[in-house]
């Protein structure tokens, strides 16, 4: 997996709370190969039913072109477990998500795709979104090793992340390979379980 270390990029504000993964990529696009899903990102938010781009939607605004960070509202990417919600973001260049809280499954799926979800205080996240609206295209700087986010106003916030997840992202650790290294422990567990729960 590609490591994640630092990222300095333009960010888009997403103001709706509870923005679910059906909005990130509607279900009807899921049965297709990944390369053909790229344009499905925020599909029904970006386009009218006759596929006219909605000029007011943030990813359609030229000023936000090239953005690689999403600054969202609470419970971002809740709902369905579809990992496509992360991959379609990554395939559109987004590698980091900042929100007061996330849907648990999306949060976990990020780490499988070299993407970083960051939880920050709700008031500060709201402040950053206001700054991004006021000056579209302004930059946000993320340093994973230092666990910091520098907002468009130059203010630095520290974020918390599990050291396991941090380490895996920084080094681009492949989780399957890591786990296969615990083969002895897994085998010992299975031997014990065969005794204890013999009916399984």
């Amino acid at each position, binding site marked *: 997996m590609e490591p994640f270390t630092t990222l300095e990029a333009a960010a888009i504000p997403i*103001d*709706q*709370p*509870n923005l*679910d993964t*059906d*909005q990130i990529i*509607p*279900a*009807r696009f*899921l*049965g*297709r*190969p990944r390369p053909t899903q790229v344009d499905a990102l925020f599909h*029904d938010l970006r386009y009218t*039913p006759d596929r006219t781009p909605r000029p007011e939607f943030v990813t359609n605004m030229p000023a936000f072109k090239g953005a690689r960070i999403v600054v969202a*509202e*609470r*419970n971002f990417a*809740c*709902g*369905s*477990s*579809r*990992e496509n919600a*992360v991959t379609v973001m990554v395939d559109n260049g987004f590698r980091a998500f900042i929100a007061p*809280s*996330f*849907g*648990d*499954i999306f949060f*976990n*799926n990020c780490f*499988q*795709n070299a993407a970083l979800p960051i939880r920050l205080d709700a008031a500060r996240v709201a402040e950053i979104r206001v700054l991004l609206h006021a000056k579209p295209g302004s930059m946000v700087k993320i340093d994973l090793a230092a666990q910091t986010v520098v907002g468009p106003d130059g203010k630095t916030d520290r974020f918390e992340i*599990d*050291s*396991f*997840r941090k*380490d895996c992202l920084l080094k681009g650790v492949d*989780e*399957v390979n890591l*786990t*296969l290294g*615990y083969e002895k*422990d*897994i085998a010992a*567990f*299975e031997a014990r*379980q065969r005794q204890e*729960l*013999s*009916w*399984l």
Partner: protein
Amino acid sequence: MAAAARTMFEKIWQRHVVVDRDDGYTLLYVDRHLMHDGSAAGFAKLRERKIKLRRPDRGFATPDHYVLSSSRAVADIPDPQHRSLVEQIRTNAAESGITLFDLGDERQGIAHVVGPEQGVTQPGLTLVCGDSHTSTHGALGALAFGIGSSEVAHVMATQCLWQRKPKAMRVSVEGKLGAGITAKDVILAIIAKIGTAGAVGHVIEYAGSAIRGLSIEGRLTVCNMSIEAGGKAGMVAPDDTTIAYLKGRPFAPKAAEWDKAVAFWRTLPSDEGATFDRDVSLDAAAIAPMVTWGTSPEDALSITGRIPEPSTAPDAAKKDSMKRALDYMGLVPGTLLEEVPVDRVFIGSCTNSRIEDLRAAAKVAAGRKVVIPAWVVAGSGLVKKQAEAEGLDKIFLAAGFEWREPGCSMCVGMNGDTGKPGQRIASTSNRNFIGRQGPGVRTHLVSPAMAVAAAVTGHFTDVRKLLG
């Protein structure tokens, strides 16, 4: 000193720790892995790595998301990519050696209906599936949660997952549910109370006399929508109801093993005095039939209520999201819910497609006629067969319902079962998200009995008036 009192979640978690790292991460063992036609990506990732499934004996699959509700023939699936996904679960199952309940087998159905029905889901086990509604299985006292396709591949390869231990939350529903009030109303009332992010980072244990009084089908409905409350998982302690439900099921333990398993299951309920990180309680008697009005499951109201006024919102952000939801839903604040017309009805999904749901629906449908298009999609071939043995299909057909083939169908519309833009659907599914049942479709979540009440009157109706 006596051992510290532990929650059921804590007991199951501790039993499945393979490795506890110093950094707070746990390698957790997975006892059961359910797969479906959307699991092709997991198999592809495994193939890329040239790794075999570690424990095919712990894997069970059934096609559900992409199967047609009009036909059992794979060849009839019009979209070649969808057809390929249904074919792939067949070939992947054959190659990997997992157990498959295939299309055409009466045991096929929605994974979250099939698991409990077959006795694959059992108390004290960990169970995962690449689907967020995996929380359903917690109704039997299992720790069950949804994962993405990379983690699906990880489980296939290692039978384990890296996890940080979630927090524990208890939701107690005490007292007696009123006549006509179902498990669906209970969970919608819970989500309305705690919010759709109310349980983020937590495993919910549902407790209290009203929960204990529910059948397994009802508990499955409650646990199913834990994810709509933001929860990682939902569980109900195993009891006599659980044990009676499991006895004799194909994958449940047999003979002497059965007694051993029951003795183990009896140790699982939370110890007296066990503490939860959060405790919430509801009064069962205060719960009315629920209907959602907005585009988040937390937007749920009693059928006796009115469409809310955004001006009553606590803050500007909430006011804005209410306005947006009302606009999408085409609703005028202040309207009585009972005066909102409905265009279509869907009874089905992993939330409400089990035999008890169909019985409750048939009870209201008996002797009445639908005035709008209405579907019943049983959760599995065995549910369908049982319903037919009880004559429920005849009741539905006589009332003008369509009686269709098992699968996820209109809950998510991935098989093409979608509504038309602007249509208002009373649905027994779990998500009223924008576009969930098709672009522009307006979804209102209700119980099966309430769905029938809407189908026979053409608008939302308090089912208690029809039950007389």
